[in-house]
């Protein structure tokens, strides 16, 4: 049985023969207590537990505190720390190099909801096969504490006064742009972050994770919507989420009874188990998802969980009918037309 360790193999080795250490990155240079670090740790845990080969992942980011974090996990994965707000385009192009690879993109609220809003919305439309994490703290950290576009109206920050503008809701923007997987979580809820990361990774297409990730230096006052304290007080999980790897039905039968759970079958054979918390929430219903987000806005709830998922739409590469061999392994023979074709082309000119 695959769940049990093989004889002679240490228990801390996963099915691709790696230890958790093999998923680590360079030591973080972010502030102690930064929500982003806990998210990096959950990425490490999720990838280890899912037995993902690091060479099968490409990391992407833009610019900002959040965008530094891909250095802090999965050293053995290729990474591209690109330009402010432009991670989606870099990731889109890179994906065509080897479309068997899965992207993990890490962005922030400035990188996504301000300078990168255009690319964010268009990468949703294209359904790039990537987990798009927004480490959302409502504030610009590296430039020392300016409002971001997700900051709540009325937020007061040192030197900035009160924020006069309405916030951008990243999940709402994603949903409206036809994202196929939209979730919100809270860095203070590590277990949920990890399970959502696994579900997002299993999703075939773009998976947006809007993770409220407090900035302990510039925006962690108890009354700020992006603080740990506010998150703990206002979190309203839609459900308890558990990711079940492919071919692990035994766990399913034993632990979860019919009726109180909802199952979402993922593209790779895995299953997301959503244990209802008295809400009967259906994340496959886009209309209901928009309603849930609207309700959260009106009531100042931090609604977390899998807000929306659609497993039917083709991911970007599938719409291009690519050869099975990764494009970056093709040779002259595949790429340069035969010599006879030059005559054909010349004949087509006048």
């Amino acid at each position: 049985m695959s769940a049990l360790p093989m004889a002679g193999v240490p228990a801390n080795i996963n099915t691709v023969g790696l230890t958790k250490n093999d998923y680590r990155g360079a030591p973080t240079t972010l502030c102690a207590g930064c929500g982003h670090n806990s998210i990096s740790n959950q990425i490490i845990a999720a990838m280890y537990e899912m037995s993902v080969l690091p060479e099968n992942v490409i990391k992407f980011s833009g610019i900002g505190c959040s965008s530094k974090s891909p250095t802090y996990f999965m050293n053995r994965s290729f990474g591209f720390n690109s330009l402010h707000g432009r991670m989606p385009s870099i990731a889109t192009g890179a994906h065509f190099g080897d479309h068997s690879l899965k992207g993990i993109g890490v962005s922030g609220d400035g990188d996504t909801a301000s300078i990168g809003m255009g690319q964010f919305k268009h990468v949703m439309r294209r359904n790039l096969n990537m987990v798009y994490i927004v480490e959302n703290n409502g504030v610009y950290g590296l430039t020392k504490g300016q409002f971001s576009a997700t900051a709540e109206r009325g937020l007061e920050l040192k030197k900035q006064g009160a924020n006069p503008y309405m916030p951008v809701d990243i999940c709402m923007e994603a949903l409206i742009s036809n994202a196929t997987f939209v979730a919100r979580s809270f860095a203070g809820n590590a277990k949920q972050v990890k399970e959502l990361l696994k579900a997002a990774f299993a999703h075939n297409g773009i998976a947006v994770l809007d993770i409220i990730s407090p900035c302990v230096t510039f925006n962690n006052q108890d009354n700020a919507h992006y603080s740990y304290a506010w998150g703990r007080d206002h979190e309203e999980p839609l459900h308890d989420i558990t990711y079940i790897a492919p071919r692990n039905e035994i766990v399913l039968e034993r632990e979860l009874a019919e009726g109180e759970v909802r199952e979402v079958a993922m593209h790779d054979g895995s299953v997301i188990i959503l244990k209802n918390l008295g809400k009967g929430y259906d994340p496959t219903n886009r209309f209901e998802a928009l309603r849930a987000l609207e309700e959260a806005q009106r009531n100042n709830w931090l609604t977390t969980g899998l807000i929306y998922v659609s497993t039917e739409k083709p991911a970007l590469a599938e719409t291009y009918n690519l050869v099975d061999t990764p494009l970056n392994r093709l040779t002259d023979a595949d790429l340069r037309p035969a010599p006879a074709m030059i005559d054909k082309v010349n004949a087509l000119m006048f």
Partner: protein
Amino acid sequence: MNKVVNDFSITVGTKNGSGSSTANNTILRAIFKMGIPVSGKNLFPSNIQGLPTWYSIRASKDGYLGRRDELDIVIAINPDSFTRDLASVAPGGAFFYADDIKLPITRADIAIYPMPIKELVKKDPNIPADYRDLVGNMIYVGALARMIGIDIEKIQAALTFHFKGKQKPIDMNFHAVQAGMEWAKANLEKKDPFYLEPMNKTDGMIMADGNTAAAIGSVFGGAQFVAWYPITPASSLAEAINDYMPMLRKREDGKHTYAVVQAEDELAAIGMTVGAGWSGLRSMTSTSGPGLSLMTEFAGLAYYAEVPVVIWDVQRIGPSTGLPTRTSQADLSFTVGMGHGDSDSIVLLPGDAFECFEFGWQAFDIAERMQAPVFVLSDLDMGMNQWMSKPFEYPKTPMDRGKILWEKDLEELKGNWGRYLDKDSDGIPYRTLPGNKHPMSAYFTRGTGHDEYAKYTEDSSVFIRNMQRLKKKYETAKKYLPKPVLHAAKGATVGIIAYGSTESAILEARDQLTRDHGMKIDILRVRAFPFTAEVDEFVREHEQVYVVEMNRDGQLHQLLSLANPEAATRLISVAYGDGLPASAKWIREGILAKSAGEKKSTAKKPSLKKSNKKGAK
């Protein structure tokens, strides 16, 4: 009246969107098929329908295919531009016009031919009412053909090509051509001197626009990823890739070895292109001035992170939105200095449709060899107009994918490698590509400071070392770049340096200067930046060097002066940019104005010491 044979211009003034391009291309192609060297230039407005537009055709037995300033034959179909068109005809020229335009004819020094286009089309039962305006253009083709002697069979060949063999439109249009011919035969008396007579000077040649040539060249170069955003005059380049890819890269399994993505803007277009280049694809984008401006930040990233990408800039005239449908050579300075901070650029400068094809595939080899962005500067005239060309030639060298380490290479190195290590002392490091399964293959790419192993650092000495290596890399680049083209003249002490689409007009201007002013001039057409040694040599070896280009500030002149400070006083700028393709006239006059009093020199080529003066007054 002396006959003028195979050496005149035809300009058609119509309304944009009136379907005249079929008629004008038919004239152009028919002349080409008669074996007469010919060029066609569309001088069009930024508009979909209604504004005046001109199409200028030049037949030249001597092969001068630059724009001709003198308008010999003018065909006026557009009432809005009628008065201007009439005034534009050179003395002794000919003026054809649609006789439904009831405006005064004020010229007695030219031949005047009214044509009852509307009437002929209206009473012809073979032309459906819906098609009258479109097909009506063919009446002037017929009348012109009759008056100057365009071969009717060649017109049919041109129409067959244009309509891809579809008989119905071919017949309908050909019928209208014949109607125009017959009417002219019966009603017009020849009063102008212009005649076409068959030659054999286009044998074995093709006609192509530079954007199509660039697209096909890119496909033969193994293009795998194209991201683009629509912009005049570059759109037809990416569209031609879409047209030719399926045919040229067809596989039995029906699957694709490439992807073409229309991005949401030029930021995303270049971003995707950089992403794909980084992951190991032959990756390109095409744009024009405003798009290139948007691409600046990514170009800097590609420079510093060392990512191969090919960026075609089909130049139009700026600044800002400028004249979106007019040509220019004014993006050179911008491209050369693109990006904040210190940077270098590799710029290829094709001169015609054939070189658009050549540089189409070569640009990928250079980009991947150098791990750097390669800009290719074409222009609207080259990109969108039909140019006579040698047939495209199959690439002579295999694809150069540059320095890439795959799993077996890393095995041999025992995983010991550094992304930015100058292992070969040529400034070019090795790279790995995503998907490489060797556990030591991955590295973290960034636009921030990095050491030889791609690790983040702000260490001053590491920064300097990396910047010096980049400098060395761009020095290495010179040996991979196309050499300039020299048109030598015996005993010349004066030179012209230029680049791009102006070559034909410059050759014509030189011949005129030699004929009328005894000036012997060598011409060097630069084909790449950074300049190779041949360019500096040419500057050294000439008393005066006129730098001819289509812009206001003499950008190439500035770059040459920077590269050859000791020769700066001998470099003379002849720059002019009005959005129209270069003509021999402005080049000739520009050079004469700058060399007023220049004496006919037969002196030997000067040494550096005695050659530091401009032409004396």
